[in-house]
């Protein structure tokens, strides 16, 4: 009897853990798929379908070290654009990036897509984090 209860409880715990995990992965999938569409309409023309950039004009998004080191700057980059030099894959880029008029949730979506595509694997970048990052824009 005791044994059965124990098994029952641990089974319920297991189900709870699994469902929590899938909640997270559902959230990730939601961010990622919305981000994929936003990427196509706002980013792909310049950065390319594979994040390959365009020679020395437009930087690629495949520099996983850059993405990792600048992860908290990315929201500001998307929102405000960029002027001046940026070094990606040890190459300098000096062209301007135009600002994008996106809501914080959209920025979170597109960043989750970029940070988990093209070789990057940084997990979900949620809207709360984007909000914090946007408050710290230089």
């Amino acid at each position, binding site marked *: 009897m005791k044994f059965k209860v124990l098994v029952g409880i641990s089974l319920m715990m297991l189900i709870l853990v699994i469902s929590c995990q899938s909640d997270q992965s559902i959230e990730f999938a939601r961010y990622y798929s919305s981000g994929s569409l936003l990427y196509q309409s706002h980013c*792909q023309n310049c950065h*390319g379908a594979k994040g390959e950039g365009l020679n*020395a*004009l437009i930087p690629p998004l495949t520099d996983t070290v850059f993405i990792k080191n600048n992860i908290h700057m990315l929201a500001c980059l998307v929102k405000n654009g960029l002027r001046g030099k940026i070094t990606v894959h040890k190459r300098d880029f000096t062209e301007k*990036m*135009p600002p994008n008029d996106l809501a914080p949730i959209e920025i979170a979506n597109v960043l989750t897509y970029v940070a988990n595509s093209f070789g990057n694997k940084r997990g979900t970048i949620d809207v709360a984090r984007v909000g914090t990052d946007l408050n710290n824009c230089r």
Partner: protein
Amino acid sequence: MRRLILAIGVIVLWSACKFNSNTSNALPIYGNRQAVTRVINGQTVTDTIYQTIPPFKMVNQYGDSISDRNLDGKIYVADFFFTSCPSICPVMQRNMLNVYNAYKNTPDVKILSYTIDPKYDSVKVLKKYADKLGVSGNMWWFIQGKKDDTYRLAEKSYLVAVSRDTTVPGGYVHQGYFVLVDKQKRVRGSYDGTNPQQVGQLIDDIKTLKTEPAPVANK
């Protein structure tokens, strides 16, 4: 009798297919045309005069002056862009690079990118842009001239195929078309420069144009 009908049917079908493949190979000639009838050596001859790209004079990324004469006997692709364009230009140039890489060692094929913002796109800016795009040599020219001249060329000459084939009003200078021009400066095709499949078709069509026999001089 039944066999005969079958045989005739097969022949008709076969020739129908063959006829189709023949016509789809030749590229259309766009623009206005007029028939000119002349008497040569007592014989009446009717010629068709096709619309061609008119003379122009501009400057390329090396500071060399470029005119229509530099394109005599060349097949070329023309497009309209500006270096500070943030929207469709990068994807156009990415696709144009495919044309460039396919024909950069072919002396009778050229690319002409007209800037529609000559005020900002000076020779220096164009050269830097070409360098960053990875374009060197004289196969692909980025050229600038008077803005009015460029717009007139675009609307009245190059995009004649576009204005005829689509319902896009007025602003098609900014729509990212690639225009294919033959050795006699006639417009032979227009392609959506933002669409990789259409640009692939353009690369094939240049091959088709190259196999066209040289025109007979009849002036």
